[in-house]
């Protein structure tokens, strides 16, 4: 790790003002950022880290105005253990509970989890060994002709084949959440509507302040498929929710952003939740999938997870 300046912000306004300075990065739980500093994978090493952990009033879970509101600095473990979230927004509680390990869930925040960077091996190679197109001035995706077993099965975004690794993001998509930032309030799908060089639409001087989930009276679920039973980033996630026969289904770790599979949702419209219909919906979910050289197997997993998530909503 190289030297950097560490500034404690006490308000979001203060934090944003520090972030306007050259090569400043925000740090909350730090579980994502510190690894990138140790590995020296950012094209410009930050001069300043702006600590937002001490900003008060951003750590809460409450129901008001017909929605669930979660403060940006709320720890994943608090979400996983919250009775309201567990009872009414099960997919989110399950996703938070499946993220990383207990120790990391006690450090990691919900905003950090949805803003995290991808986990492409080439992007993360230390000291920018592979200067890929996610790095400023990089022009090539090394994974396309390399070890692509954990990469996208729904094509590239601006030639990048990396996938979004967040566990909570697909749950928030399935629950039709909104993201409140210091500048705007956007639908969660729009929050991830990026061109590939970044993970979210956030500007350098913009912070997430709150997650809003509309009152939800249906059923929801979340499935994580990973190499180990704890800690690992997902090989694939699937979250699903259903209200009055209408599904929202989202896969993650399959594409550069969380992948809502509308084909599967449509296939289930007005249909009974049973093995055959769920199977057909799973097939519909991957109808536009196209494998890279080493990840055809992920298509089978994707259709299986969609099917199982639907069945779990019965």
């Amino acid at each position, binding site marked *: *790790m*190289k*030297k950097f300046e560490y500034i404690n912000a006490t308000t979001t306004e203060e934090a944003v003002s520090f972030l306007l300075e050259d090569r400043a990065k925000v740090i909350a739980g730090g579980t994502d950022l510190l*690894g990138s500093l*140790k*590995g*020296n994978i950012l094209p410009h090493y930050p001069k300043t880290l702006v600590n937002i952990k001490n900003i008060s009033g951003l750590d809460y879970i409450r129901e008001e105005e017909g929605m669930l509101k979660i403060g940006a600095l709320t720890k994943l473990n608090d979400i996983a253990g919250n009775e309201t979230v567990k009872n009414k927004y099960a997919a989110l509680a399950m996703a938070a509970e499946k993220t990383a390990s207990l120790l990391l869930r006690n450090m990691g925040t919900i905003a950090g989890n949805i803003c995290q960077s991808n*986990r492409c*091996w*080439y992007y*993360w*190679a*230390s000291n920018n*060994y*592979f200067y890929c197109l996610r790095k400023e001035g990089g022009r090539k995706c*090394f994974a396309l*002709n*390399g*070890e692509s*077993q954990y990469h996208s099965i729904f094509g590239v975004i601006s030639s990048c084949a990396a996938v979004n690794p967040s566990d909570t993001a697909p749950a928030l998509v399935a629950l039709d959440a909104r993201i409140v930032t210091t500048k705007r309030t956007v639908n969660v799908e729009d929050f991830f509507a990026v061109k590939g060089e970044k993970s979210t639409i956030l500007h350098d001087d913009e912070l997430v302040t709150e997650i809003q989930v509309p009152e939800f009276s249906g059923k929801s679920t979340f499935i994580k*498929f990973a*190499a*180990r*039973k*704890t*800690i*690992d*980033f997902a*090989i694939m996630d699937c979250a699903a929710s259903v209200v009055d026969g209408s599904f929202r289904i989202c896969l993650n770790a399959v594409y550069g952003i969380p992948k809502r599979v509308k084909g599967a949702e449509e296939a289930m419209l007005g249909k009974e939740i049973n093995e055959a219909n769920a199977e057909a919906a799973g097939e519909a979910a991957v109808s536009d999938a196209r494998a890279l050289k*080493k*990840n*055809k*197997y992920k298509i*089978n*997993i994707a259709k*299986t*997870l969609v099917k199982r998530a639907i069945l779990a909503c019965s």
Partner: protein
Amino acid sequence: MSSEEIRIMAEEFKYIGKPVQRKDAIGKVTGLAKYTVDMRFPGMLTMRFLRSPHAHANITSIDVSEARKLPGVVDILTYKDVFEQHGYIPIEVGGLPIFSLLDKRVRYVGDLVAAVVAKDIYSTEEALGHIKVEYEVLPAVFDVDSALKPGAPILHPEPETRLDPNPDLETVDNVIPTQMITSFNEGDIEKGFQEADVIIENTFEYDAYQPHICLEPHCSVVVPQGDQLTVYLSGQSVWGPATAYHQLFGPKVNVVLPISGGGFGSKHDAQRENCLAAVAAKKTGKPIANIPTREEEYICYLHRCGMKSTWKLGAKKDGTLTALDCHNYTDCGAYNFGVRVACAQAVISSEMITKCPNQRYKIIPVFTNTSPGGAMRGYGFFEGCFALGSAILKLDEQLNLDPMEIFMKNGVEPGDTHFDFQTGHKKTVSTGNLAVTLKKGSKIFGWSDKWKGWGKPLSVNGDKRTGVGFGVCVAPRGGMGAAATVHLDANGTAKISAAVTEMGQGTQAALCMMVAELLKLPIDNVNFGEVSTSGTPFTAVGQAESRSMVDFGNALSRAVDDAKKQLFELGAEALGVKTEELDTKDGIVFVKAKPEISIPWLFLFGFTASCIIGRGDNREHVNSLKYPHAVPSSFYELEVDTETGELSIPYWAGGVDAGRQINPYGLLAMYEGGNLQGQAFVFRERLYRDQATGKVLNGNMIFCGGATIFDRPDIMEIYLPQEEIEPTALFGAKGEGEGANSPAWGLLLAFHNATGKWITKLPATPKEVLELLGKG
């Protein structure tokens, strides 16, 4: 074994076989135990390395002048400073000069280019970016087949590092020079195949390059005091690494091994990086810490080698083996860290089926431009067991026999012989019985009820199919040199000096129990001395091949005999009786027939400040023609999710014939942990390399983590096949260690049973599983 020991064995043991809490336990679980990585000294500097971005290149120019000027930077070493002074260094006692600490040629992505010494980690890392290097990039080879092709680039053409120095470079290839036997024949292989009703050939690829993932990296802290150096090293062998340090600086180096955070085979050698820390400490006169990053630990400090193992078997219709022909290629990476042994150990897995009369073996260890391989738990044995185990099972299947048939018919039993690759001698198996172990395991697991036939699963539940399988291996134990002393102190305590490291495995604790039993002392009164070159007798090989219980047990047995002899001579004089009339207990010497006639050690030799030191060694067992075999075994129910490729184990029953149990807690934990590691090899662990550059892509705990407790089988049951007393080992204990992971090849049978497919390449991640099932 002396008559005294046999007599003790007949009595009720006080400690042997009883659960005794280890002395190191509290310090480890509270975090107060001090590891090498915790060492701090005034003025301590830190070291970091510039590493090669190229898989194969010559350094044509290197300029450190700018980096030297940066604040905090104390020194920078390149090949110019190091090679001319120190030349090539051997890594093991009596070994070949293998490598230079810093070379003009780099041989893998991550190879050493320069070493920066600075006041803190930030300054070292800053300096690395300011060293200017130009390379002449050379063609590279990333696998055994390419490395052996005519005209392939040669990694080590230097005559000094060859076994048979040959100035004619044209004849040099990438096969690693070895002093070992590289081929072995017994019987008539052609005749054996002619007699066979069925011949089957099976190639198993182990492309895993699996990391050790020791919790403490392979670090060292070097402290210079005048011309003396003290090296604190996280290691698993003290005299092995000392070879390199003594070659560099002569005998004024004390190598100290505090408790070590895991070894698994990775820490037999000092490694070039730790040697460079010593060079820099000597040069700067300051203490220097080399604490590798986790990525360096994965990529540059050894991992399991790649292997390609072909076994051709011939058998009669009834399963009697007539011929066994094995070719084993090992990808050792860019440097030779004893991996030729791994190559040989792989074929020694055939000790499980000693009855085959016609056998032929060939081992070919090969250099490639990949990160260096080394010993890893099993040292090739694990890989060999997979290949041979699969080959035998396929033969069983083809002959439509029960999967246990060939093992039962041809399996090792006491009195069988097998060749030894180190010496070429035939050795006799002292204890170890494959059939007995399998029968015991079958009964506990319920094999006869659960085995429904080849390719017929135990159960099918939707997408999930459960199959059953068993794995077994026969692991030779001991037979290498070991020296030990036992000091009797007049206050009624004893201390052991032996080059036995504590790296989690608990051998020190077990040896203390044995000595407490032999001397009839409370366990708290027996201590293990510091493990260092200044504190332990020379022993060439450290904690390798799970040998320590047998070899150091025997050395300590002799040492205790020697100490008792001296003690009873003093006692006989003091009490006016004959030495054979005496015994000792709780630090008191007494007359056996009249225990009231006694004298405490304190009065016997305390006030004269006499010193009783018993010395012992293992010489009568070194290269002995008779030696023990442990027999680990595992039975699995494996659940295959046929749509996601996920593998999980609802039920596992495992057991090991380890001779007499010394510390049952330790034995069970060792076996459980070993099994979990074996399972992880099968399911997951592998370092992946970018094929264009040769760069390892997932060398860290996030992308390639070890098994956690959550990954254990749902139900685990451990059995002891028999407590067979090994006559050539102290208390009959064979110990347990590496073999615990090797029966994991039973998972391949369970997979075949569940799906009808054979896994022939490890690991079998969901990708490989779904591809095998035609869904990927």
